[in-house]
C-alpha cells in the first residue's frame, strides 16, 4: 500500500468534521510509526497536532521503543507529545516481543534498547506510558506478577505512572498457550487493582472499570456497544482509506460497513447463554467483537467471566466505601455521589447517612400528621413547596427527597 499524505489529510479532515468525532484525540499507531522517515513522521505529527491542540488533546504515538533516538525525542518535545511504549515487563518477562522472540540474543539486545529508550524519554521529561500485554510469560504465576509490578514500580520512580495492562487475546493457534484463563485474569487484575490504588498509579483498564461503574462514559471502546462492521474506533490507512479498528484487519475487513448498527447487542440481550439479564450489561455490552467466543462476533466476549468478576470486585469495593453510592448498573442512575452531597443533605457523609433537610423557619405547634408521616398538601404552611413530600417532625418539617436511594438510612 502506497502512502499518500494528502489523502490522509483529506480523510482526517473529513472525519474530524463528523459529529461522532467531536473532541476525539488522534494518535499515531503502527505497525511501527517510527519506521517512516523523520520528515514524513513530523508531517503526520504536525497534522495530528493541528486537530489535537484546539481540543486540548495531546498527540500520542505508540511505539515499540526500538528506534527512539535523541533526534526523535527532540521531535516529541517540540510537539508536546506523549509516548506509549509497548513493553511486557523487565527483560526476562518481555520475551514475546521484539524482532525475533525465538532468538535469545536478539531479544536481549532489543530489551536493552527498550530500557534505554524509556530512560531517554524520561530524562527529557517526555510523558511516557507503558502498553503492556498480560500473558502467561509475565504474570502466569504470582512470582512473575510480582516481578512485573516491581518493574512498573521502578518505572513509576522514573515518572512513568500509567499506561495500559490489557490481557493477551490470542487470534492464532500458536499464541493460545500464552493467553491467561478468566480465573487467572481475575486474580491478576484484582491484585493490579489494589497495586494501582495503593501506589496512586493510573494504569488502565482498572481505572476505566471504576469510571464505567460510576457512569462517566464507558471506556475503552470495547465496552461501547461496538459494531463489528462499523467499529467505534476509526483508522486511517497510509493511502487515506478510512476504515474500522485495526482489530478487524486480521479478519479481512478493510472497509467501514454500511447499514444498521446494534444487532449484536440486540442478539446478546435476548440470549440466556450470552448476556440476557446480566447485571453489568450497561458497562460492558458484550465486550469487544474481536474477542468474541469461538471467533464469532455474534457471541459475547470470551473474557466475560473476567469482566464480570472484575466489575463485581470493584462494585463491592465502591459500595463498601460508599454504601449509598449510585452506580450505572443501578435503576434510576443519576449522580453517583448524590446521597453524599451538600445538594442533598445538611450534613454530608461518605456513607450517605444523611440528616434530612429540615425547614427550621416554620414553627408550627399543631401537628398535621404523626411524626415522620407525610403531611397532606392542603395542610402545609404556605412557605413550603407543595410539590415536595414533606413529613412532619417536631419543630419543623423535612422534605423527604431521597427515598429513591436504596438503603438510605433516614434518621
Amino acid at each position, binding site marked *: 500500500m502506497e502512502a499518500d499524505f494528502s489523502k490522509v489529510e483529506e480523510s482526517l479532515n473529513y472525519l474530524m468534521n463528523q459529529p461522532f468525532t467531536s473532541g476525539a484525540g488522534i494518535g499515531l499507531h503502527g505497525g511501527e510509526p517510527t519506521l517512516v522517515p523523520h520528515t514524513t513522521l513530523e508531517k503526520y505529527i504536525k497534522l495530528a497536532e493541528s486537530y489535537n491542540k484546539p481540543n486540548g488533546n495531546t498527540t500520542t504515538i505508540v511505539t515499540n521503543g526500538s528506534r527512539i533516538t535523541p533526534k526523535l525525542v527532540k521531535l516529541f518535545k517540540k510537539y508536546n507529545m506523549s509516548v506509549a511504549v509497548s513493553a511486557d515487563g523487565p527483560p526476562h518477562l518481555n520475551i514475546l516481543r521484539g524482532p525475533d522472540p525465538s532468538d535469545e540474543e536478539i531479544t536481549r539486545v532489543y530489551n536493552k534498547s527498550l530500557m534505554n529508550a524509556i530512560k531517554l524519554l524520561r530524562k527529557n521529561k517526555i510523558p511516557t506510558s507503558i502498553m503492556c500485554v498480560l500473558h502467561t510469560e509475565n504474570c502466569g504465576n504470582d512470582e512473575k506478577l510480582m516481578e512485573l509490578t516491581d518493574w512498573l514500580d521502578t518505572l513509576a520512580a522514573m515518572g512513568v505512572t500509567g499506561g495500559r495492562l490489557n490481557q493477551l487475546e490470542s487470534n492464532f493457534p500458536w499464541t493460545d498457550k500464552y493467553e491467561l484463563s478468566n480465573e487467572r485474569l481475575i486474580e491478576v487484575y484484582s491484585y493490579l487493582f489494589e497495586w494501582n490504588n495503593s501506589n496512586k498509579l493510573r494504569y488502565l483498564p482498572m481505572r476505566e472499570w471504576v469510571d464505567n461503574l460510576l457512569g462517566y462514559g464507558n471506556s475503552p471502546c470495547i465496552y461501547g456497544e461496538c459494531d463489528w462492521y462499523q467499529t467505534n474506533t476509526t483508522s486511517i490507512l497510509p493511502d487515506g*482509506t478510512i476504515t474500522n479498528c485495526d482489530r478487524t484487519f486480521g479478519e*479481512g*475487513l*478493510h*472497509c467501514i460497513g*454500511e447499514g*444498521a448498527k446494534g444487532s449484536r447487542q440486540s442478539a446478546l440481550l435476548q440470549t440466556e447463554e450470552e448476556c440476557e439479564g446480566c447485571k453489568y450489561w450497561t458497562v460492558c455490552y458484550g465486550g469487544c467483537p474481536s474477542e468474541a467466543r469461538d471467533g464469532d462476533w455474534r457471541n459475547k466476549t470470551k473474557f466475560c467471566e473476567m469482566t464480570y468478576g472484575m466489575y463485581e470486585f470493584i462494585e463491592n469495593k465502591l459500595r463498601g466505601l460508599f454504601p449509598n453510592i449510585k452506580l450505572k448498573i443501578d435503576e434510576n442512575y443519576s449522580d453517583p455521589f448524590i446521597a453524599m452531597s451538600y445538594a442533598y443533605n445538611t450534613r454530608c457523609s461518605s456513607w450517605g447517612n444523611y440528616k434530612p433537610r429540615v425547614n427550621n423557619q416554620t414553627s408550627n405547634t399543631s401537628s398535621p400528621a404523626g411524626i415522620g408521616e407525610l403531611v397532606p398538601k392542603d395542610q402545609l404552611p404556605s412557605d413550603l413547596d407543595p410539590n415536595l413530600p414533606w413529613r412532619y417532625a417536631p419543630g419543623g418539617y423535612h422534605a423527604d427527597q431521597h427515598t429513591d436511594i436504596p438503603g438510605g438510612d433516614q434518621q
Partner: protein
Amino acid sequence: MKEIFPFVNMTWNTRKLKDKWVPILQDINHGDLETQFEMIKRGYRQANSYGFTTPRFDEEMIWLSERGLIALPIHRTQLHKGYDHRFYMKNKIDMETYVYSAVSDTYDSAKQFKDHHLLPDGTDHKEVGAMLGYPDCCVEKFLGHWPTKADPTWDLAAGSDGAEVAENTVHITGNKKLNNLARAFGFKVCGYYVGDYNCPEAIKFADKWIECMESYVDSESMEMLLELLDSPMTWSMKNGIIEVRTEAFRGATNGYFTDEKKVIYWNQP
C-alpha cells in the same frame, strides 16, 4: 418473543472491490425492482407486493402508474431495511411507515392478492406463492418449515438434492440462479425461498426472471452477478443474526434464534 428487528449491515472486503461493485449493485437492484413487475407484464406472475414508504410515497405512486400498475394497500407496518419475517403492524402513518401493498396490472388480481393476505386466520401463503409464480413444490417445502423457522434457508439447503449435512453444517453445490443466500444485500436472481437449490421448476422460474432482468440490467452486471452467485459463499446464523461471507463482501442481517450455529457452505469443496 425473541427476535432481531429487520436490518442489513454490510461491508466490502476491500476498497477496490467496493469501487468495482457499487455501480454494478445499483444496476442490479434497479433491474431487480423493474423485473418484479415486468414479470407481471409478461404473464409470468399475477401480482407482486410493494412497500410504499412515506417519504417517497408520491414518487412511488408515479413510478407504479407509469407502468400501468394498480396498488392496493394491505398493511401499515414499521419501516425497515432487509427482509421482515412478520409484519410489524402500526396504525399511525408517519415518516417511519411502510405500507405493504398488493400490486398488479388489474384491479381484480391486486384485490385477490390482497384478500389472500387478509383471511381470518392470517395469510394464505399457498395462494400468495402461486400468484407470485413460484413453483408449487417450492411453496410446499417452504411451508414445511415456516413460520416455526422464520428464515428456513438452512433447512431448505439441508433438504436439497446433493446436500451433505453434518449436524448443523450443510455443504451444497447449488444452481447459481437459485442462490438466495445474499438476497438481503441485493445479490440474487429471483431470491425467493426455493424448495431445493437444484430444483428444475425453480430454475425455469429463474430463467424467466433473468429474461426480464436482462431488459433492464447491463449484460456485464448480469454476468458479474451470476459469477458471484456461483462462487464460494458461507452463510451462517448465530444468536438470531445471519452472516454471509463472499469473495466481494460480507453482510449481516436478521435471522431467527436457534440453539446451535447453523452454517451453509455454498459451492465449496
